[in-house]
């Protein structure tokens, strides 16, 4: 009960703060829609697909590769950094808030944002005739695992590398943009040369994209996406573990008035 109450309190607070910064919310809406439209129309034109097929293929990668990346990774880094900059982290240490609840609160808040973006992306994609082919729940699980991985990574980056708010954009761009391109977010991985594809297999975003694309757009069976799911699962666990250790490290450094 204590953990639940604290988790909800942290999540509510983050969402309230976000609600106050309406511009960020609007940008987080504009960004995935723009990427979806670009991806959809380019695919339709260059891959000779119908608009509906193109948008069915464009929606999963736009969601986990692009939208969640910036909102959940960038958002969680920004949350941790802002908390440190405002020194409110110190006040949290004075309260009975547990570290687990804090982590879960950030996860829940970003999961809400991610799900909101998911609804938005699929609403727009549906307007162009896109469909979710199968495995609704597994798809949701992939989205949640991706959010957990992004939030965990956000904790690592936010506690270890970003000292100020200005660092967030540079950090997300430096790590993110190459990974997004290599993950098949803007360009289908099927078009990658063999050598690049071999490198892409070490990129978690590639596995997120391929897992969701496989089950929601390409009617692949579970065994066909199994390797991607396994990679994603391990990556999420490692990131959550890494995020937790980083948080503990931050506790030691910041836990003083």
């Amino acid at each position, binding site marked *: 009960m204590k953990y639940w*109450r604290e988790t909800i309190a942290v999540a509510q607070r983050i969402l*309230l*703060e976000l609600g*106050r910064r309406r511009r960020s919310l609007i940008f987080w809406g504009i960004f995935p829609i723009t990427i979806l439209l670009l991806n959809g129309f380019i695919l339709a034109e260059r891959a000779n697909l119908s608009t509906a097929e193109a948008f069915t293929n464009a929606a999963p990668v736009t969601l986990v590769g692009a939208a969640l990346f910036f909102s959940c990774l960038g958002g969680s880094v920004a949350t941790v950094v802002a908390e440190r900059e405002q020194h409110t982290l110190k006040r949290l240490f*004075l309260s009975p808030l547990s570290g687990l609840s804090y982590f879960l609160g950030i996860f829940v808040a970003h999961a809400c944002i991610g799900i909101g973006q998911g609804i938005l992306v699929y609403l727009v994609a549906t307007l162009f005739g896109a469909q979710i082919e199968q495995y609704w729940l597994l798809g949701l699980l992939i989205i949640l695992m991706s959010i957990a991985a992004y939030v965990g990574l956000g904790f690592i980056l936010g506690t270890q590398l970003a000292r100020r708010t200005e660092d967030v954009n540079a950090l997300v761009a430096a790590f993110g943009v190459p990974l997004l391109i290599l993950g098949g977010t803007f360009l289908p991985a099927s078009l990658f040369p063999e050598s690049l594809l071999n490198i892409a297999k070490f990129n978690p975003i590639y596995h997120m994209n391929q897992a969701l694309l496989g089950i929601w757009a390409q009617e692949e069976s579970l065994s066909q996406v199994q390797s991607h799911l396994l990679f994603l699962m391990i990556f999420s666990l490692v990131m959550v573990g890494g995020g937790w250790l980083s948080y503990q490290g931050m506790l030691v450094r910041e836990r003083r008035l």
Partner: protein
Amino acid sequence: MLKLDGVCKSYGSREVLRNLTLTAYPREVYGLLGPNGAGKTTTINLICNLLERDRGRIEFNQQPISAATKSLIGIAPQQNLLYQSLSCQENLNFYAQLYGLNKQHRKEQIAWCLDAVQLRDRARSIVANLSGGMQRRLNIAVALVHNPELVILDEPTTGLDIETRYEIWSLINKLRETGITIILTTHLLDEAEKLCQRLGLLKSGQIIAEGTLETLKKSIPAEEIVMIKTQEKEKAIQRGQELGLTPRRYGNDLAFWLPQAQDLKTIMDKFTGIPLDSLSRESIRLEHIYLEMMQQSSI
């Protein structure tokens, strides 16, 4: 009752607190005074269980300080630790939730806190839009929202205008009357003199004097102090010493401790022949005691 007994704390080889012992009682404002680096913040960190002590005991209401006592303690740190994009009410609500207050209790406590710090009419105002004084008051309100039994106010009026300072003094007095224990750190000695029932003077990690203002006054061998401004300080010091008066330097002023109160004419006669810019007689205040204890300086 807060009790620190023989508390020691070092950062590496640097000893910050040495055998620190103090007791603060309910319905009391205990003033913890000392220069920067004396160990005040470390003491607060230890009381709040943010740091591990090396030795000694810290108890509140006979319970050892631990994670479990967190909800008994409220702290208003020097900096205003507030969420700038949330309103006053939302900030209070968030912390009240963390302390486990149920919805009804939260509502009552938030209303009480906003009333106590006179921010009721600004409940929905965004913190970033509040003045410095209002943010300071909200910072104190956050410390009170979970109804703590021990409140630590770390320099609560630093940087505030005089009106806001009076408002905060009045709030502290009201809080004390509710029966809670208050630890106040401040560099403003008039503030400590007005608010604190007992005072602890901290120097190099040790309490060098403790007690009520009256007790502390008794430890000073003087009833009054004479402040002199003169260009010929050395001459004045020499004259004072010949008359058995203890001289002190307070910045540019020269002070002499008088064992017994004397009328102004008698005092002025003592310095005949020395050109004085000004001469005033003051009763002993905390400021003098503090300087005496801290500097232990003689000319």
